[in-house]
């Protein structure tokens, strides 16, 4: 039998999750309730949190912190988070966006989790609270590597630096159904420019590996280069390094490998999707 516990504070929820390995946090319900409806989740405790900090948006300054319970609709309602509107809009339809949270997206299995791809390109930190202690920040990449082993603790927030220029963050989700479809793949590219040259680019892919991944080979070839045809060609050639895409109902591994370099080149060239 499934029980539901309601926690007024994040500390209480973190304590519950630490003390019971069959306890699971429920945010918007778009992942957890699917398992309940399918009969995959029949025992244990669902933990709800009503702590205001869980849904807090701190987007005014250079360092941004978003509570894990912040929904895609809340991101879209924030003018200060305009650079994240494209990835937020790529999640589901309006009803899903009212429910789905940033924290939940971090746990979405491939090929879902497109918002996390954008956070990865922003080198976000994930704030995790284990037990009743205070939260600690860990790089999103480390979080994703450890995610499927479970037992990480309660994700309370994500933090990242605001891009110098909103246009520095580019995002593209490739899907067969428009405007709402599951990703064949997604790409986020944070491309700060210094004197016309790319400085410390960060590129991330969704659905090209079991979790969202950084495209370090592409980052290396772009570093210090102007975004011209030669740099884009080099990026295209390096695009697939480290990719381990799957064959699923949406696309085959072969297809994903074929189209990723094409879409990466278009994204870097600033072409419309």
């Amino acid at each position: 039998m499934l029980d539901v516990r309601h926690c007024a504070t994040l500390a209480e929820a973190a304590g519950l999750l630490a003390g019971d390995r069959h306890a699971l946090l429920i945010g918007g319900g778009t992942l957890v309730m699917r398992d309940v409806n399918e009969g995959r989740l029949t025992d244990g405790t669902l933990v709800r949190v009503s702590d205001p900090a869980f849904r807090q948006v701190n987007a005014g300054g250079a360092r941004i912190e978003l509570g894990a319970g912040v929904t895609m609709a809340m991101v879209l309602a924030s003018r200060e988070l305009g650079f994240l509107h494209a990835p937020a809009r790529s999640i589901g339809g309006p009803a899903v966006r009212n429910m789905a949270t940033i924290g939940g997206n971090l746990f979405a299995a491939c090929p879902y989790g497109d918002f996390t791809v954008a956070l990865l390109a922003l080198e976000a930190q994930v704030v995790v609270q284990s037990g009743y202690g205070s939260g600690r920040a860990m790089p999103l990449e480390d979080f994703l590597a450890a995610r499927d082993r479970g037992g990480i603790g309660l994700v309370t927030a994500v933090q990242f630096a605001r891009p110098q220029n909103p246009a520095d963050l580019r995002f593209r989700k490739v899907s067969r159904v428009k405007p709402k479809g599951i990703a064949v793949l997604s790409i986020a590219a944070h491309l700060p420019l210094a004197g016309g040259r790319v400085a410390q680019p960060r590129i991330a892919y969704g659905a090209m590996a079991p979790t969202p991944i950084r495209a370090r080979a592409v980052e290396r070839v772009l570093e210090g280069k102007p975004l011209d045809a030669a740099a884009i060609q080099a990026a295209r050639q390096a695009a697939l390094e480290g990719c381990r895409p799957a064959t699923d109902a949406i696309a085959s591994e072969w297809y994903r490998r074929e189209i990723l370099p094409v879409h990466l080149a278009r994204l870097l060239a600033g072409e419309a999707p």
Partner: protein
Amino acid sequence: MAKLPVQFSLNGTDRATFVEPAGTLLDMLRRGLGDFAPKYGCGQGTCGVCTVLVDGEPHLSCLTLAVACEGRRIETVSGMADGPDLHPLQQAFMDHFAAQCGFCTPGMLTAARALLAKNPNPTREEVIDGISGNICRCTGYEPIIAAILAAAGSPGARRA
């Protein structure tokens, strides 16, 4: 496991009932309260036929815990008509033959209602985005889009 009490407003009327701890809003509406307007389609958040308004915003009732609706304002298609007078969206759906098998209709109407409440004069693209979470397996999307655009132009389309 003991059932839990929930109080909320359903289509403007205060209601109270008991639910299973992990029961869904959809189950509470259909089995508990006999409001059969929202349907169980995929149970996965993909088809949108269970869409209801929670505090005016579209939510998928099959993925929403009933206990999370304490004190909330729930609205379904059952409360759209004003006595014998259909809501302008309902009338437009009839006029434009926007229902074929009709299974997706409650979700489509609810999504459209939420869209027009926020955006009384949507473009065709905005209508398509507004119903993008709702699947019509008869693929009758064109009459649905036409009906919503027609209702948007009619007085009273924003009626809550």
